[in-house]
């Protein structure tokens, strides 16, 4: 990889992390309402998968995939406004956090219903295939969401038509408080791919190199019409399920173990081994991402909160009369 690329990826890792940290801090300060689901610790997955995508590729992020928005091209300012529930957010305040997509950048906004985006991704991928377009749909989901029927229906359909879709499972070992052994019994979720007639693989989701490699191959396969891939990324969330969750259902030892494989740190080790000036890069990048996030927060705070009657907008293509006697 070129030094530029090395630095660029580092920038993304740091930007996502800074963004996450800032949001957690804002939440603590009571500046946000609504759920905040930190993806801290899982940055390599979203960076790795979204970095290689084109503008006309689509992603389907879930609640912990804030990084996916940033790397896929969303304006950090608008993303922050979305999180604040302001008028300049993707939802114009109608919903918050990641329940608003950024369609101009190929980002579909999820409902809360876990797994429900996967059929949408598969449907969209069918269009790419039917029209001979070489775009790709990438759907993210947690290992907890994998238990939902929708996930099955989508994978089955994607297999039948060998659709250009990549299913990225972020196995962070917990669904809220529920550990893997109460969520599924297979050795690995990647094994399920066979039952749908496509390829599944397991990846170290904390190692950006591994993720990049796997992402590149899966995306290329989809683009060339060779069908879907299910990639199970083993990773870990540092925070509780949401900022309100003290995550007492897990051992501190476990958290420490995972922190010792931190994706940002691992990338710094790599930068060092490539003889880049890590200290300088770190300082410079920190400054850069701090500025981006700062600006985003300033923008979001300045963005007006929507007014009451705006609640009636955007419901239908042409407003219908919803005033009843």
């Amino acid at each position: 990889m070129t030094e530029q690329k090395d630095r660029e990826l580092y920038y993304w890792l740091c930007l996502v992390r800074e963004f996450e940290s800032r949001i957690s801090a804002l939440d603590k300060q009571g500046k946000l309402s609504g759920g905040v689901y930190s993806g801290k610790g899982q940055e390599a997955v979203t960076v790795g998968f979204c970095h290689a995508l084109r503008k006309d590729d689509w992603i389907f992020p879930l609640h912990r995939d804030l990084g996916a928005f940033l790397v896929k091209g969303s304006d950090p300012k608008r993303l922050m406004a979305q999180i604040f529930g302001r008028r300049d957010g993707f939802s114009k305040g109608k919903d918050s956090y990641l329940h608003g997509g950024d369609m101009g950048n190929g980002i579909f906004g999820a409902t809360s219903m876990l797994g429900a985006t996967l059929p949408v991704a598969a449907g969209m991928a069918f269009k790419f295939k039917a029209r001979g377009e070489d775009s790709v749909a990438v759907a993210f989901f947690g290992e907890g969401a994998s238990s939902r029927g929708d996930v099955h229906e989508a994978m089955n359909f994607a297999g039948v038509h060998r659709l250009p879709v990549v299913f990225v499972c972020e196995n962070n070992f917990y669904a809220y408080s529920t550990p893997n052994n109460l969520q599924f019994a297979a050795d690995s979720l990647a094994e399920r791919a066979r039952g749908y007639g496509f390829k599944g693989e397991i990846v170290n989701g904390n190692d950006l190199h591994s993720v990049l490699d796997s992402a590149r191959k899966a995306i290329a396969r989809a683009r060339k019409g060779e069908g879907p891939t299910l990639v199970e990324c083993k990773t870990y969330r540092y925070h509780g399920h949401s900022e309100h969750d003290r995550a007492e259902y897990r051992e501190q030892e476990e958290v420490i173990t995972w922190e010792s494989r931190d994706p940002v740190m691992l990338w710094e080790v790599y930068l060092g081994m490539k003889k880049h000036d890590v200290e300088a890069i770190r300082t410079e990048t920190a400054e850069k991402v701090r500025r981006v996030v700062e600006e985003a927060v300033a923008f979001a705070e300045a963005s007006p909160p929507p007014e009451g009657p705006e609640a009636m907008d955007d419901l239908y293509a042409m407003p219908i009369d919803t005033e009843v006697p």
Partner: protein
Amino acid sequence: MQVTYIEAIRQAMEEEMARDPNVMLLGEDVGVLGGPFKASAGLQEKFGPDRVLDMPISESMIVGGGVGLAVQGMRPICEMQFIDFISCAFDQIVNTAATLRYRHGGQTACPIVVRGPSGGGVHGGLYHSQNPEAWFFHVPGLKVVAPSTAYDAKGLLKAAIRDDDPVIYFEHKFFYRRIKEEIPEDDYVVPIGQAALRREGRDLTVVAYGPPFHAAMKAARDMEKEVDIEVIDLRTLLPLDWGTIKSSVRKTGKLLVLHEARLTGGVGAEIAARVAQDCFEDLDGPVMRLAARDTHTPFAAAMEDYVLPNQDKVTEAIRKLAAY
């Protein structure tokens, strides 16, 4: 040309697919088979398997996939083999589709149609007789239509396909081959949101859709010497054509609402409630409703008939209200 209700549906899909290459049909057995009722007979042959798509038995995928296609500018028609199975796609309809535009702050349209055979009267039993429109009537962001003539079946389906919002289209299977009408050769649409005043009258308004609408028309003709009945065919349930209902009730002072779906929590309740609020001073009698009894639609003939509205019950209800 003379066409049946089901043929009107087939023509609407065929013509819209011919007109707009983005229109497509997703459903179980819609391709080679042409659907259990032949609603899509010949379409796959004409438009190919990428536009008339035989889906696995996955209703949630059918509708969710439709949303993904819609975001890409396609206009998918999502067929439920029987409308009863819409329960299996419920989340995708009420959450993914109905809120799509809203949660995206207007960034996208959601032009999907979900349609399928609804209704009873054919001894279909609990799972092939349902009229689930009230569930969707309660969901902002959706539009809901229920045609009762072949003309409307075609015109409303065309309108639904061209509409930029998700439309749930209830076609009544009792009508499929029992209704046959002359309809125009030329392209036409029936605008969503407009009820049809099928018969003018001064004494009493009947608002109806589905089989009880036809019962009301017959009763109105049969009783025309005694009472002058105005009959409104609702056609679109959501958004409700409140203006048409209101002016009619203002004029006649009496309202009977009819539908085949169960009474409690049905669409008729909303209409009655609005009239009770907004036309209070105009009313010369109680707002009446007749609908299915509050149970499931049973299989055995006598029970089914006991549960569903029929000609006798409709006539009796009209007579009772007229006499008030």
